[in-house]
């Protein structure tokens, strides 16, 4: 990298180098439209005429409308836009036929209306925007164009009936994700966002004997995977987090005795996909809570326009209603929505007044754009107001996307959540719907808010997260749980942590109580897997260093040393647990074997090459053989998904 005078210089160079060349086709299209509009503006074309603009391109009109209508606070801008508004009132911009996806009723009305002063259109467009929100795609721009040209005297007249609006949004949605112009084949259409994380690399024990990570009880990745596979698509490899797949399932691990919050169990067995390596399986079983303190829950619900799909707001309302049944009379619930502006829909209400809460939930409707930052502030303010000593306060955020109004950057949002966590209010994040999920932000928020990130794609998933495992999601029994494993270079040549890529910690962070880590909820099980290559195994991939330090001889009876740190809820000082893992491979037991099958499945989806010939059929066989009790049918479902993935991967 060349030397730069200063940071600004570097930024200048980077900006210059990265700017792509304009696309000729887009350029021509834009220029043509500009010229056509120019011609129309001269009054040469007053009749409706066909254009070459396909519906998805019609968004430019929206931009046009916005430029006219949006007052800008900067004084100079005000000057320009007021000039333009004057112009709009007197000049016909253009006339265009309705795109096919616009419901005919709406458009006809618009076209038929006589010209009127521009100003009513401003209000009308704002209203329009608020209702359809961000789902409003390019096609809606056409309607706005009409507004510019022939604003209606009565805004209500053009406002479509709710059904019509729903229909129009629906058709936009189904014609859907085509934000991209035609000649852009490589650009994926979805705006779902996932954090980048390359799989954990193989570590050589003599070089790096210590591995440190935070536990992860999120399950979002599994539900995401299920929803992808059910739609007949292999999931984006980046969306697959192996540890979240593994931790989706409840396991019957040995339960803690006495007053420790959890019990850890380590087993070593043969790796299913490689007979020459071993799988070290770390199992943590959290204690069940018998007496729980009262809960204060603030539902922070995204009711922006895009939430009106059946798998979003309606599912959300259903899901939260399911959960109400699990609450006790003394628990309190409040509801805050965010869309355009944040609002408190339900003041803190005792769970015993279930009717009132349900009514509030059922009244929710989608509309407006997302003002997440503001909503989050309002929700925390309510939570503060509700919380009393000994009670547990939690904000439950349900959304289909990210926030980008209000707090400016993800870092700022994260800092806010983190600060609130310290004051004792936690945050859990529930994702709904597809096409717009910001998985990366969900992860960040939940991780920093001492909460769980779950993705709810079906009512059954809501049942699992909010009913069957509610106490785990709501009651933290140990927080900042960190795992550190030191491998013995005399017995372990190489090792690899499977999953937990987004949860890696630095070695020194283990003893630093200020460093945040994952939480264990009541009854949660957490599983971590290492693939370990013993010294002398055929599977050792690296050659020993010629001049390196000779591996310490002597202790050949220990495989590894496990350290665990956790804090009691609310404590600032961590406690340490230690355990020696002896050399020797045994039978994993069906719980560990099932987790290995899922870990293998996840790695297959990520395209991990360490698995060799081991494929979906092997994962299916292993999972099938170790279904165990499977009271809720989760494991059977996993096998179904594996078979789906197998078929899809053969296409």
């Amino acid at each position, binding site marked *: 990298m060349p030397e730069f005078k200063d940071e600004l210089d570097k*930024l200048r160079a980077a900006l210059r180098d990265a*700017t792509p060349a304009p696309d000729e086709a887009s350029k021509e299209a834009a220029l043509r439209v500009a010229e056509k509009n120019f011609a129309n503006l001269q009054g040469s074309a007053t009749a409706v005429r066909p254009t070459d603009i396909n519906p998805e391109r019609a968004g430019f009109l929206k931009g046009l409308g916005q430029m006219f209508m949006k007052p800008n606070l900067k004084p100079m801008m005000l000057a320009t836009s007021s*000039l333009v508004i004057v112009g709009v009132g007197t000049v016909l911009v253009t006339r265009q036929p309705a795109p096919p996806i616009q419901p005919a009723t709406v458009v006809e009305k618009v076209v038929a209306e006589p010209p009127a002063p521009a100003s009513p259109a401003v209000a009308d467009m704002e209203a329009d925007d608020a209702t359809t929100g961000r789902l409003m795609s390019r096609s809606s721009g056409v309607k706005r164009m009409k507004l510019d040209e022939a604003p209606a005297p009565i805004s209500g007249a053009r406002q479509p009936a709710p059904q019509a609006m729903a229909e129009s949004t629906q058709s936009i949605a189904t014609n859907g994700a085509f934000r991209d112009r035609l000649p852009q084949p490589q650009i994926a259409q979805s705006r779902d966002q996932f954090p980048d994380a390359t799989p954990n690399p193989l570590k050589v024990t003599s070089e790096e004997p210590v591995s440190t990570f935070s536990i992860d009880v999120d399950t979002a990745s599994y539900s995401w995977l299920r929803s992808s596979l059910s739609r007949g698509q292999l999931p984006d490899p980046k969306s697959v987090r192996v540890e979240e797949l593994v931790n989706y399932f409840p396991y019957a691990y040995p339960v803690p005795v006495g007053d420790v919050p959890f019990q850890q169990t380590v087993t070593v067995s043969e790796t299913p996909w490689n007979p020459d390596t071993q799988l070290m399986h770390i199992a943590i079983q959290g204690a069940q809570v018998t007496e729980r303190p009262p809960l204060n829950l603030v539902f922070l619900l995204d009711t922006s326009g895009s939430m009106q799909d059946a798998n979003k707001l309606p599912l959300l309302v259903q899901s939260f209603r399911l959960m109400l049944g699990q609450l006790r009379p003394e628990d309190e619930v409040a509801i805050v929505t965010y869309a355009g502006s944040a609002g408190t829909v339900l003041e803190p209400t005792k769970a015993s007044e279930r009717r009132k809460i349900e009514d509030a939930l059922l009244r929710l409707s989608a509309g407006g754009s997302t003002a997440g930052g503001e909503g989050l502030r309002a929700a925390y303010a309510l939570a503060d107001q509700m919380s009393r000593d000994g009670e547990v306060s939690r904000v439950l955020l349900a959304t289909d*996307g990210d926030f980008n109004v209000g707090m400016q950057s993800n870092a700022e949002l994260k800092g806010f959540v983190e600060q609130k966590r310290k004051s004792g209010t936690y945050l859990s994040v529930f994702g709904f719907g597809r096409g717009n999920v910001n998985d990366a932000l969900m992860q960040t928020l939940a991780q920093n808010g001492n909460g769980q990130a779950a993705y709810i794609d079906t009512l059954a998933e809501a049942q699992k997260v909010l009913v069957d495992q509610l106490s785990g999601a709501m009651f933290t029994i140990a927080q900042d749980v960190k795992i550190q494993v030191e491998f013995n270079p005399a017995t372990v040549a190489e090792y690899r942590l499977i999953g937990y890529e987004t949860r890696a910690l630095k070695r020194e962070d283990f003893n630093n109580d200020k460093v945040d880590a994952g939480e264990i909820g009541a009854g949660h099980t957490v599983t971590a897997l290492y693939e370990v290559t013993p010294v002398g195994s055929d599977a050792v991939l690296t050659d020993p260093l010629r001049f390196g330090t000779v591996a310490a001889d002597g202790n050949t009876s220990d495989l590894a040393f496990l350290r665990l740190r956790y804090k009691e809820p609310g404590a600032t000082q961590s406690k340490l647990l230690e355990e020696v893992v002896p050399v020797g491979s045994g039978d994993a037991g069906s719980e560990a074997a099932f987790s290995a099958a899922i870990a293998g499945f996840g790695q297959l989806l990520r395209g991990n090459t360490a698995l060799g010939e081991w494929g979906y059929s092997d994962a299916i066989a292993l999972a099938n053989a170790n279904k165990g009790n499977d009271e809720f049918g989760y494991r059977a479902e996993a096998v179904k998904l594996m078979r789906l993935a197998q078929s899809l991967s053969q296409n």
Partner: protein
Amino acid sequence: MRPTITMRMKTSDEALAQAASDGDSEAFGLLVRRHYDRLFRLSWRLTGHKADAEDLTHDILAALPAKLRGFRSDAKFTTWLYRVTLNAATDCARKAQRRVKARDGWGQDYTRRAAEAAETAQAQDWLTNAMRALPAELRETVALTLGEDLTQAQAAEVMGLSEGTIAWRMSEVKRHLREMATEEAR
């Protein structure tokens, strides 16, 4: 005599804009062709995504005929155009956050970034991080001063701010970048 196209190749932006605003379609055509690339570059620097930049440019151009009536030839055309662009980018972002992440651009659209494989070089990552770390108004300022090579005075004129504000903003940008560098080093 009507000026020929060749003659007009040398005509100033301002004169072309004036002619266009008086209804000369040829002048308008020349003007937009002359400025498309500049407009696109600035749009890209404001949004951080090629598709978004194309959309934004398209929107601005489509609206330009009407907007041009607000153009006064006592201002420099490019200054005016920059202003229009910033304004449009801000509006688009505010109104249709989902569609164009222009002002709140440089979002972490991983899927798309992966697809635009050529762009995900290390430098680009640094750039993306750097731009994302900046608040919107600093990003705009950077796009004008570093991206378009405007002087602080010119940028101030475009944004309707004092030169001192731009100078201060650039020092803020520097501070952000330094912070980023120290964080990276950790």
